[in-house]
């Protein structure tokens, strides 16, 4: 599976390198004034196909995500984004007339399982569903995300043949398969469960139903960032002039689930991040200084300023901010 993932990722990378030039050339051709309406319509269709191919390439890249990559960002999945990447692959893995329905709300909590691991588990389930729906007149696969007992559950339901009682009892046993050897290893479900168990999640078989089968991927949510003074997300104000530092800080703040508030706000601030130039106004001037909350200064410590509650961060090493913002 790891080798296939690497191959898929390489293919996805190469596809992207080819797709961008095509998209750029499409822009050039579309800008011409001499095109008929029909030609414009054809170009629009080509663009749609290329964008779909681009999303497919993005999904292939997901399959090679390294579950052993310990960087925090690599361990988290925002399910709506993840589904947007993976959707084309799921569609292509199923018969063309399959109805795929997804209810994955934008406000579902971020889950603490790597996107590549989740992709591998889902693709395994989809391949099982494909076989189960082989003779279904109107095949349907539905994905539903929900929150229950502090975990996010993703139900994957098909309307295929379902499982008999022995298959239901043994489906998580390694090497158990209802397919012919050579076509299936019987390791998909047991491996999927082991993978998600590693992150404190689970893969569960849903209750017996009249037709079809439901599996549920249960996932722990990201450990929430410490709450601010009023119990909600920490409120951060940024007094940074360098646009590069500002863009990076905004990315980090969003990633950590913190909320940016206007730079002019002085009340109810949990954290102020400022540059050296703005520091005196933050700590010295009573009219504009932060009341409460901690202060991070980006730059080199100056002998005349640092009060004890200011933490300094080297602008060339923002990685330490990861710990500070947690």
């Amino acid at each position, binding site marked *: 599976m790891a080798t296939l993932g690497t191959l898929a990722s390489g293919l996805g990378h190469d596809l992207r390198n080819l797709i*961008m030039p095509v998209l*750029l050339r499409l822009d*050039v051709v579309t800008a011409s004034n001499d095109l008929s309406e029909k030609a414009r319509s054809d170009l629009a269709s080509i663009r749609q196909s290329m964008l779909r191919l*681009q*999303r497919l390439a993005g999904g292939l890249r997901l399959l090679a995500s390294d579950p052993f990559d310990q960087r925090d960002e690599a361990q988290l999945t925002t399910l709506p984004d993840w589904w947007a990447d993976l959707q084309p692959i799921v569609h292509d893995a199923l018969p063309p007339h399959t109805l795929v329905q997804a209810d994955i709300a934008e406000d579902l909590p971020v889950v603490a399982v790597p996107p590549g691991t989740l992709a591998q588990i889902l693709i395994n389930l989809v391949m099982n569903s494909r076989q189960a729906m082989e003779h279904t007149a109107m095949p349907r696969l539905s994905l539903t995300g929900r929150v229950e007992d502090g975990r996010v559950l993703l139900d994957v339901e098909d309307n295929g043949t379902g499982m008999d009682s022995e298959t239901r009892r043994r489906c998580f046993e390694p090497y158990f398969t209802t397919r012919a050897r050579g076509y299936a290893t019987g390791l998909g479900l047991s491996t999927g469960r082991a993978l998600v168990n590693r992150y404190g999640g689970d893969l569960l078989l849903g209750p017996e139903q009249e037709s079809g089968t439901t599996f549920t991927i249960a996932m722990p949510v990201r450990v929430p960032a410490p709450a601010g003074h009023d119990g909600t997300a920490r409120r951060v104000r940024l007094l940074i002039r360098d646009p*590069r530092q500002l863009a*990076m800080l905004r990315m980090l703040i969003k990633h950590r689930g913190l909320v940016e508030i206007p730079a002019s706000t002085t009340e109810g601030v949990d954290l102020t991040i400022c540059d050296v130039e703005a520091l005196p106004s933050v700590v010295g001037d009573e009219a504009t200084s932060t009341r409460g909350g901690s202060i991070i200064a980006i730059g080199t410590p100056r002998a005349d300023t640092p009060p004890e509650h200011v933490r300094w961060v080297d602008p060339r090493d923002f*990685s330490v901010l990861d710990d500070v913002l947690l």
Partner: protein
Amino acid sequence: MESMPFSVMCIDDNVLLIDALERRLNLEPGFTGLQRVDDLAHSVEVAERLQPSVVLLDIDLPGGVDALSILDEIVERLPDTRVLVFTGFPSGDLVRRTMSRGAWGFVSKGTTAETLIGAIRRVVAGQAVIELEE
């Protein structure tokens, strides 16, 4: 309003991309030309000679050429040139590593052409840009 003139230098081995980007940028007001680097190992010297407004730097260069060293040298030697990192393997960690070294922008190869052109224009205008995915 008159557009600010700008030139772009591509440090990338993808000739298809460079040719297409040049054609597309020709539609942009203020664009004065695209510069290429034949020998990637000498990218910094070429940049010093041509003084582009923006360098589009592929972070995954072939032949053992170290793109991060190129970034460091351009930032140090060409303070008026803004580097826009362009990669097929985007990550938050790479954003931090490249932008804290002085890059002005970071764009994933998974974005659209509009996003790439928009990122170049915004960097020219002095804005920092992070575009990870569509």
